[in-house]
């Protein structure tokens, strides 16, 4: 299938009082039609900034996209005029945010907020759009949808609010849905409801999804392909089965080892990664993970490894082969 999104060499910096922070340092990824890409990483690794940069949602100043291209159906999102990108955002590429408590306007009714993209992009009248919104709310599983159009966000629970957010993102039948940690603020049983809902809608509507999360558990059952980010770089990318069965970057290995598993037989000591993620005031010239890495060799402190292909659908940025303990061939 064809690539619907193709991002190349994206770099974003934030100019702060303490200096320039290099949040995204040359990230490239692509998304095929109907595919689900998981972007995994810890807080501050640049996973949200990556997609926000692509949609030009980075507040500027202090943020600035300094390099890269982001082609959506052949057109570069980063070179579009403001008017053009407005036609794409919310209509063809839409987004669900992490916190369903703060992403709504508390003084507008749900009906008013969910219908906004319809009126803005599709030129629907108020009556038309409200009918469509009621339909959408029903589709995401909100009981008595029609009656609830005039309710305010605080009258919905967290899980329900996230459903409304999904409905709002899907009103214009987008080609791409970007979900930025949509279940992090929710309880596990509600999280399971939301994940099931998104899977069902994906299969019914055939959209592509970028799912950003720090939870390697959720991604395992949801994504086709996974990119692991660290310090503004994609350090490993593979198909979901390949990544979990054959993780090649020491950081990915550490992340998987630090998670206790529900189906584990033996009680083992968790693998912990010592230290903490860096804040990059300089663009690194060595491997950014090297200070925390168990497999570090001299070369790691001199050169930053590029992403290299190690399998049919598997790329890794590491000088060492963690399996053999020697340099990668």
């Amino acid at each position: 299938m064809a690539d619907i999104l193709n991002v190349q060499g994206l770099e974003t910096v934030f100019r702060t009082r303490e200096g320039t922070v290099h949040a995204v340092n040359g990230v490239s990824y692509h998304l095929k039609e109907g595919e689900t890409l998981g972007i995994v990483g810890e807080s501050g690794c640049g996973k949200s900034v990556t997609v926000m940069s692509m949609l030009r949602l980075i507040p500027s100043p202090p943020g600035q996209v300094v390099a890269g291209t982001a082609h959506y159906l052949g057109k570069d999102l980063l070179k579009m005029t403001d008017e053009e990108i407005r036609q794409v955002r919310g209509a063809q590429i839409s987004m669900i945010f992490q916190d369903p408590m703060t992403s709504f306007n508390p003084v507008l009714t749900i009906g008013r907020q969910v219908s906004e993209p319809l009126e803005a992009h599709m030129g629907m009248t108020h009556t038309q759009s409200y009918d469509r919104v009621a339909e959408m709310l029903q589709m995401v599983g909100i009981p008595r949808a029609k009656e609830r159009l005039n309710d305010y966000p605080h009258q919905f629970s967290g899980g329900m609010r996230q459903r409304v957010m999904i409905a709002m993102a899907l009103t214009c039948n987008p080609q791409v849905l970007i979900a930025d940690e949509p279940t992090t603020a929710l309880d596990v049983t509600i999280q399971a409801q939301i994940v099931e809902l998104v899977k069902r809608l994906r299969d019914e509507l055939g959209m592509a999804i970028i799912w950003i999360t720090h939870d390697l558990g959720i991604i395992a059952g949801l994504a086709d392909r996974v990119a692991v980010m660290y310090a503004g770089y994609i350090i490993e990318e593979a198909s979901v089965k390949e990544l979990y069965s054959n993780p090649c970057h020491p950081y990915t290995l550490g992340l998987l080892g630090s998670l206790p598993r529900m189906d584990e037989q033996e009680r083992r000591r968790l693998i912990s990664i010592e230290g903490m993620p860096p804040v990059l005031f300089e663009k690194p010239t060595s491997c950014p993970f090297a200070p925390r890495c168990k497999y570090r060799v001299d070369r790691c402190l001199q050169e930053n490894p590029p992403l290299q292909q190690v399998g049919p659908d598997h790329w890794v940025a590491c000088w060492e082969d963690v399996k053999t303990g020697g340099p990668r061939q």
Partner: protein
Amino acid sequence: MTGTNDYVLLRVENLVKHFPITKGIFIQKQIGAVHAVDGVSFNILRGETLGLVGESGCGKSTTGRAILQLHKPTSGHVFFEGEDLVTMRAESLRRMRRKMQMIFQDPYASLNPRMTVGEIIGEPLVIHNLAPKKEAEERVQQLLRLVGLNPSYSNRYPHEFSGGQRQRIGVARALALQPSLIICDEPISALDVSVQAQVVNLLEDLQHQFNLTYLFIAHDLSMVRHISTRVAVMYLGVIGELAAREELYTNPLHPYTQALLSAVPIPDPVAEEVRQRIILQGDVPSPVNPPSGCRFRTRCPLAAKICAEVKPEFREVSPGHFVACHMV
């Protein structure tokens, strides 16, 4: 746990905590109550870790605080080493508190920003008049080393540390008085995944070293399975099921426990493919006006008529396995 170790350190009996809802400014009238904890009973044996899991708002943190009398319980008893904390006078309670400490969820909010790390960790020693200044300083250095921080950090302020390091400071403060029981209230949920493992490993090491007893409150079921000896599952102010760790995770009997366990994602795409999920409908009801009979009946796939009428008894169905459900 075997041999001499095997006795009850803490016994909680029918613990109830209601928070009043009042109306009016000058003449306050109680118009209702949040039934945060509604009759909870369990034991903790010396040296074990009891995991207390449940979703947000189920009353697990309130239970932890009510045990330490940080919230005065509405009714019920908390026996610590055989003495009832609920009826205890303030002075004796203060002395008892030496033996019971707490680690809080948010390492950003639970350390005073105007105190140095040394003052924070040394404060319990000062309050309880346990060590003269010089000795206290040495003890602080020792504690910092114990939790894996550089002793020279004692003159720094909390903002100079990362989340994981701050949580280590919280652990050091809890250890200062050499307590026997530590209540860990979601100690890792504010931390990044790779740092969570560091703190959990530290807690396990300290437990072995000092024979500590933990009440580990969390919503992360995989982590609770990893750290606990026994696990209690709470829902809307009551315990639905309590059993030894392996028993609870391999043979869950309460429908809520079953749904909760099936909802936890496993970081393995092959295992995820074949898993059957029990998806619960709806949300947790409000604790202001909880459902009659069984608390879980409004979302339970097995609910029958009796569930609305009679509150299920919390009974032992096999040795050490307690469950409150009519259908078991």
